[in-house]
């Protein structure tokens, strides 16, 4: 049937006599419906057609001769599977472009939501409301007014006036003006810099020179002024007069300031200081001198200025013991330099402090106590006493001053010589003061008592050599304490000494420590059974071999933490009450690699007690910040991944409904118009 189709001769159309399922549109009747179409049927016609090339004919012949069957096409399931696989790979690759952003956000110290916030600040009305129109009469009225004043109502943001002003200045003008401004600014900054630089110069000489130059200039100007502008000159004169009056009123250049006082002390030794003082006085004199109208006698000598230096400049240096304010500024006698004193001297020195009343009181107290406890240690007592006298001296400095002590003052300014420890006392005892000491007029019973105590009575004092095996480093202490702090420390030390006088702390400590060490040492377990394998009974000991065999020594524990610290006991017991608050060593929290890391993370304080405000703010900043009342939208791909735009419309929604549609429409219009 197929071969007949191609023939020129039109086949006669058969009449259809019965209903058939297959109706050919080419009027072919359903004659050979069940027949299979063979390849030869199709190819047979090719051979006959003249138009077909030989090549194709050959190929077709070859094809006909080959017996191989084509493979079946994949079934639907499999093709779909492949399709899905490809699609999945594609999507996965596409989604992977978020990886960096996601990782970055996860690592970020702080995230602020909503993302991509619009810049804060005022916005134009047009930006906020689109498609808004005046409706109420009030609004209309307002807008009418605005229109009258040609205020912007709609899109033009600038008023006509503003626009005009914008246009007003031409480019050239603007350029010139700008250049001027620039120049002015540059000059200003230059002068500022210069002034700053000069101000920074520390050299006094430089400033002096400058000042003098200024002065000279001023004088010159003044001279000129006298000739040219007498009124101005008069005014200047008045100013000078005023300054003279001020100078006379104030104590500014009269050697009474802090600086002058310090110089006054120095002046005795230092020539330059003396000179400086003199200069100041000269200045005072100059300033207070009445300005005379330039006349003949203007060059008057003023040598008498030299005599105005206060007397005390020539005085000897003030007493080191500045206890007595009365003595200040007085001529004092030359003193022998006292370097060392005997123990007795120390005591006498202590006794001879200016406050008799206090000392008397201490004495009384001491006596009372002595009566109470016979075995009180004398040395300790001395220490205590010296301590108290010192306190007393402090007190007197505050106010308790009795004028009757003046005579001792000069002799005994070693009131502050300190006995640091026993060694010092002993050392002091070896020296003999070459200078005879004036006998004090005070009651000296206590002193006599103190001195009469024999030195070997300090037996009960802690013997450091006995206790400390190591050689102590000898610290040289100056005899004259210079800083107040040290005094306080001394007080502290002596208070402590007094408090722990009775107990031998150090040896107790050592005993304690050895006890603890012994307790920590493993005990030898004795498992010997007497009478087992040999004779037993009263008076019989297990044999040596057996004892050796059955005494079991356990392994020594790890060395103590305080093994190499002689003056420390570190308790190695676990404190149950604290342990409940501690992070166990075994369970190290997750991100930390070792205990040191964890501890360092804990050690840094974050609170405002230890850190400045900004640091605290930085350290306590929260990980996520959200804005109150703001909707946090999901990420928008176009905002983060720039190069790939999937939707042609970009971010904007495609179709809106109702009112929004109108808004969108307006927006679009704007976009296009822009």
């Amino acid at each position, binding site marked *: 049937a197929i071969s007949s189709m191609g023939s020129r001769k039109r086949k006669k159309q058969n009449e259809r006599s019965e209903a058939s399922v297959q109706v050919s549109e080419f009027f072919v009747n359903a004659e050979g419906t069940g027949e299979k179409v063979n390849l030869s049927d199709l190819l047979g016609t090719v051979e006959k057609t003249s138009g077909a090339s030989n090549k194709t004919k050959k190929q077709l012949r070859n094809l006909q001769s080959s017996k191989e069957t084509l493979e079946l096409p994949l079934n639907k399931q499999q093709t779909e599977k492949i399709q899905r696989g490809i699609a999945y790979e594609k*999507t996965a690759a596409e989604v992977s472009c978020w990886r960096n952003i*996601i990782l970055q*956000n996860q690592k970020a110290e702080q995230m602020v939501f909503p993302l991509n916030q619009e810049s804060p600040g005022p916005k134009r009305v047009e930006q906020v409301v689109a498609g808004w129109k005046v409706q109420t009469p009030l609004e209309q009225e307002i807008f009418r007014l605005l229109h009258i004043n040609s205020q912007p109502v709609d899109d033009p943001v600038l008023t006509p006036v503003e626009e005009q002003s914008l246009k007003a200045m031409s480019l050239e003008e603007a350029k010139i003006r700008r250049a001027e401004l620039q120049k002015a600014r540059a000059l200003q900054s230059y002068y500022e810099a210069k002034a700053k630089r000069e101000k920074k110069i520390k050299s006094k000489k430089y400033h002096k020179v400058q000042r003098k130059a200024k002065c000279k200039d001023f004088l010159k100007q003044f001279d000129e002024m006298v000739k040219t502008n007498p009124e101005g000159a008069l005014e200047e004169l008045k100013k000078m007069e005023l300054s003279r009056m001020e100078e006379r009123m104030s104590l500014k250049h009269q050697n009474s300031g802090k600086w002058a006082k310090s110089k006054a002390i120095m002046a005795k030794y230092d020539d330059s200081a003396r000179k400086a003082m003199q200069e100041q006085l000269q200045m005072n004199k100059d300033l207070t001198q009445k300005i005379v109208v330039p006349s003949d006698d203007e060059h008057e000598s003023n040598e008498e200025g030299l005599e105005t230096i206060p007397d005390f400049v020539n005085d000897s240096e003030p007493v080191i013991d500045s206890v007595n304010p009365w003595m200040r500024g007085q001529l004092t006698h030359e003193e022998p330099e006292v370097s060392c004193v005997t123990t007795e001297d120390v005591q006498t020195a202590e006794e001879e402090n200016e406050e008799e009343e206090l000392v008397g009181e201490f004495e009384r107290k001491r006596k009372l106590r002595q009566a109470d406890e016979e075995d009180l240690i004398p040395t300790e007592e001395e220490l205590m006493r010296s301590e108290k006298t010192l306190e007393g001296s402090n007190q007197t400095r*505050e106010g308790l001053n009795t004028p009757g002590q003046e005579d001792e003052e000069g002799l005994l300014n070693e009131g502050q010589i300190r006995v640091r420890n026993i060694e010092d006392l002993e050392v002091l005892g070896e020296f003999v003061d070459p200078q005879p000491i004036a006998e004090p007029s005070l009651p000296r019973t206590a002193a006599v008592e103190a001195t009469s105590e024999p030195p070997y009575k300090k037996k009960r004092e802690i013997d450091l050599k006995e206790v400390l095996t190591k050689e102590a480093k000898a610290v040289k202490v100056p005899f004259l304490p210079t800083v107040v702090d040290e005094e306080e420390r001394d007080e502290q030390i002596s208070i402590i000494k007094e408090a722990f006088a009775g107990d031998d702390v150090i040896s107790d400590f050592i005993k304690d420590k050895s006890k603890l060490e012994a307790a920590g040492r493993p005990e030898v377990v004795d498992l010997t059974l007497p009478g087992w394998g040999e004779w037993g009974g009263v008076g019989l000991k297990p044999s040596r071999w057996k004892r050796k065999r059955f005494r079991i020594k356990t392994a020594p524990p790890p060395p103590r933490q305080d093994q190499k610290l002689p003056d420390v006991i570190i308790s190695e017991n676990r404190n149950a009450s604290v342990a409940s*608050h501690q992070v166990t060593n075994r369970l190290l929290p997750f991100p930390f690699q070792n205990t040191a890391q964890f501890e360092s993370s804990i050690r840094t304080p974050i609170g405002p007690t230890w850190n400045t405000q900004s640091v605290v703010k930085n350290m306590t900043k929260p990980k996520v910040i959200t804005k109150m009342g703001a909707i946090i939208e*999901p990420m928008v791909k176009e905002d983060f991944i720039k190069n790939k735009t999937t939707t042609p419309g970009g971010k904007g929604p495609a179709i809106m409904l109702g009112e929004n549609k109108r808004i969108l429409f307006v927006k679009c219009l704007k976009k296009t118009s822009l």
Partner: protein
Amino acid sequence: HQSAYESDNIKVLCRNPDDYVRETTRDIQRVPRNYDPTLHPFEVPREYTRALNATKLERVFAKPFVASLDGHRDGISCITKHAKSLSTVISGACDGEVKLWNLPRQECLRTVQAHEGFVRGICSRFCGTSFFTVGDDKTIKQWNLEAPGYGVREEPINTILGKAVFTGIDHHQRESTFVTCGQTVDIWDEQRSSPIRSFSWGVDSFSCVRYNPVETELLASCASDRSIVLYDTRESAPLRKVIMQLRSNTLCWNPMEAYYFTCANEDYNLYTYDIRHLDVPVTVHMDHVSAVLDVDYSPTGREFVSASFDKTIRIFPKDKGHSREVYHTKRMQHVICVRWSADNKYVLSGSDEMNIRLWKANASEKLGLLSTREKAAAHYNKKLIEKFQHHPQVRRIARHRHLPGDILKQKREQREMKEARRRREQNVRKHSKPGSVPLLTEKEKHVAAVVE
């Protein structure tokens, strides 16, 4: 009092009153501080005490329940947030009723009898002008969000009659297409009454379908044959399917991390998947003691909230295996749906007993405007708790939650069961040929197969 008679002239302390006199009683004077560490010793113990106190206070102030919205006459089957308004929420009930709620006023604005039978799904249009509902009556209805005028009948804008029951609906983030699921996953254009695309992959029903909010062409659905299927609307065929041990009820995409989603499973767990590696979930979130029915991500993408049949809501950090918070009330029954509000502050839950409950997302957070000092103190306390979180006392207090007795009991029971299972597995492994019983991690256990 030292140095009053330091020398012959008297020195007097003199201060500027501006430095210490307040202008008003609320004026806070700047206190000059010396930060020398020797002056402020024991920083670690002091901070530890502060941390402990902060932790305790956090628990004291943990009052998460804000409000309950009642008015529905049947169990709540679905909730959705308004796309543009934080204060509006739409909920659908099992009797076909849909209610619009105003959250700050805690009242129902509008009631619509949307469907006959269940309202199976609601979604709000991205522009916030209308919403879609699907129900058991085989219809998709689009409703205007604005209430009709007085005396006007409440009628949908658009109604589409489908061939089968729709079980879920979700709207595209920016385009006017939406997707429904039922017997197939259909993608609809709003303007047409027949789906523009239809996906099916040899399963008879889906329970949930969700658009990816970031990669907006991606879809994921949960099917009743325990599978989760991924689609791309640009492709002709679904992408891939992962079959789990039990059925997943719902899923939710992470709004900030495009390739992660979390599914709520019947086996009491939630699973977070990376769509690029579906064979093993990224995290298994365990804590519920009954089937998890719904899950929703926080808009920041850091946490998600899950609703469960065990009458609790739990909040999980997205990368943690266990929940950080559990909410329950005596009267709250099986929680069917849950949503996290778009400002990251609240959580809404709809449950069987016809109530919608509003919870705070952070239980101890103070609501409303905070003064700068309050804010700073809150941040400091939070940081302290974080710093000392590994200390046993702090951890104990911070992690302590009161649970209803039956949940606690169930939890214990399940722990025992799990332990028994583990032991049994161990024994099997011990008594069989080495290597024949492979050691599976918790993550690997729950995935049955990944079908390409």
